């Protein structure tokens, strides 16, 4: 059984972007814990604040145009209080990062060896010989064939899947206890995606690290996650173990998403579920009352709560609001 102590704790995080004189929160009161030895998936459609959450945890925001409140606790430190120099140590050393576009996170002018080695140089005191050994070990670990050769290659000489493996190798270089991966397989073909996801699960098994896996793809969640937080408009609307979420989804947003997954048609006039309207932009987001209510207009106003909060409905299962008790799809009786 996994150690239950939390590795990373996010408390009431708010990240606002500046629009002229005002800040609008893209992450609006998110609290989450990441434990050792688990993959926590953050899922939701584009614009719901997933990447902002990731970059806030990693301290990657421009302070001139961003306002961050709340806490990100790691080893008794609130990371949000750290200066840039200390944060730099944490990144790479304690938190490894993997992004969607491997080409964008690699330096096109440096060989694979030099990129991985650079990170080792910065964060460890291995000598050159040891670094070479470690680079080979890492390339092996991420399943790169002929590492001696690939090591001398430049990013553009590798396929998309190989590049993402290199990015993962860099993220793992200093054996960080935490890995944050933002849409790591979104740009890849399904067969390569499957290999990269297997790799991440294997790494998590071997190293016992905690992984925050951000994705818009519920299939990726079902295949890899231990726990899932569903985000809508900057907030977590549901959080549960992966088995619980797929077996017993409660929040209207989660249920709507699951219903819009393309599937084999049962009848000729069978249609996919469409969520009414669109995700509002930050400036237009209702800051009072429920954010999802406008997307389910057939639910009577009285059924909504004024200021819905996350409730624990069963152990390991939290849902925002109590609406799920009355929710039904349009045209469906409750």
């Amino acid at each position, binding site marked *: 059984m996994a150690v239950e102590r939390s590795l990373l704790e996010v408390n009431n995080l708010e990240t606002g972007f500046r629009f002229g004189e005002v800040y609008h929160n893209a992450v609006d009161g998110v609290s989450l814990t990441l434990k050792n030895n688990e993959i926590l998936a953050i899922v939701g*459609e*584009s614009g719901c604040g997933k990447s902002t959450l990731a970059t806030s945890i990693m301290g990657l925001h421009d302070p001139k145009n961003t306002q961050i409140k709340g806490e990100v606790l790691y080893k008794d430190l609130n990371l949000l209080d750290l200066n840039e120099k200390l944060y730099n140590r944490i990144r790479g050393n304690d938190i490894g990062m993997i992004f969607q576009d491997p080409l964008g996170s690699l330096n096109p002018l440096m060989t694979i060896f030099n990129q991985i080695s650079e990170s080792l140089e910065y964060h460890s005191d291995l000598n050159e010989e040891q670094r070479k050994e470690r680079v080979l070990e890492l390339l092996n670990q991420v399943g790169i064939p002929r590492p001696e050769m690939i090591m001398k290659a430049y990013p553009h000489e590798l396929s998309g899947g190989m590049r993402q493996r290199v990015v993962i190798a860099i993220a793992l270089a200093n054996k960080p206890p935490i890995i944050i991966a933002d849409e790591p397989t979104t740009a890849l*073909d*399904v*067969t390569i*995606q*499957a*290999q990269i*996801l*297997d790799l991440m699960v294997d790494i998590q098994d071997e190293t016992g690290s905690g992984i925050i896996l951000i994705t*818009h*793809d*519920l*299939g*990726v969640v*079902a*295949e890899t*996650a231990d726990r899932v937080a569903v985000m809508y408009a900057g907030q977590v609307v549901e959080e549960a173990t*992966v*088995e619980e979420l*797929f*077996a017993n989804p409660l929040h209207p947003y989660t249920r*709507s*998403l699951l219903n*819009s*997954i*393309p*599937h*084999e*048609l049962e009848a000729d006039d069978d*249609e*996919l*579920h*469409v*969520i009414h309207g*669109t995700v509002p932009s930050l400036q237009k987001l209702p800051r009072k009352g429920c954010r999802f209510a406008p997307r389910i207009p057939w639910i009577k106003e009285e059924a909504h709560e004024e200021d819905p909060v996350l409730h624990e409905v069963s152990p390991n299962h939290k849902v925002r609001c109590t609406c799920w008790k009355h929710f039904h799809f349009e045209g469906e009786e409750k």
Partner: protein
Amino acid sequence: MGFIEVKDLKVHYPIRGGVLNTIQDYVKAVDGINLSIESGKTYGLVGESGSGKTTIGKTIIGLEKATSGDIYYEDQLVTNRARSRQKKYAAYNKDVQMIFQDATSSMNPKKRILDVVAEPMRNYFDYTPEEVKRKVVDLLEIVGMNAEAMYKYPHEFSGGQRQRIGVARAVASDPKLIIADEPTSALDLSVQAQVLNFMRRIQKEYNLSYLFISHDLGVVQHMSDDIAIMHKGRFVEQGSKNAVYNNPQHIYTKRLLSAIPDMDPTTRAAHKVERQRVEAEYDAQETEYYDPDGRVYDLQEFGDNHLVALKPEEPNASLQNEKVKTGGER
């Protein structure tokens, strides 16, 4: 017989190099494929990136040149004539339309939606301005948009709305075939659902055919009657959706299908074992499924409306590509 027949289509791009910039080799983007398109049906075209899907679509619509092979439209040879201004090809031009992953790229940003959607009508029909307007309103309504959208510009819409406008425009010339190249790949799940629903409604209303190109096997399964699985410019398997999804024969098809994420977390472990087994089989059996040059074999009839690119039993036993019954016949 379909109203469009694509016979042994090849599209090879020259790779130039050397001091004299001479042709060194060719990228065989499409290397001998057959399609037979009947009205009212959807043909799914699946394969990993670079397999040649877009090139097939663009060649049918005349944006790329066929190196060899023939395209027939209602028995008329139209290969490399799709962009022709000659009158005898006008019907073909009108009847085949294409939608791209990013509809915006094919819309003039300075034109209002009214003009964007009306353009094909003005090209092919002699409607009065009032008729054009009325028809644009009807089309927008079909894709779930208000008449007031007419007076806005493309950038004023979200990605999903622009894809729907793209669908409305493709339908405006009253075509018989729409080639849809990854029409929902850039969209969120719920927006994708909306676009796919509209595409299916329009199909019924106008008895349209789709050549539906996607790397997403779930979407293709949802939309298609028949499916072709593409690898390295060739079809490895082709036939009814049911045959290809439920009784896959080519190792590449099996590999692709087993890589689709499983929506049930409780069977995750078993799914992973199966996927890795297929992956190992793929690595081990490559020579059984590809010729010594790595080329996909010719398709052979395997069952009712089911073709598979299997290694010929013995020399000469293989059917000639041209003689193979193409997908779409039931």
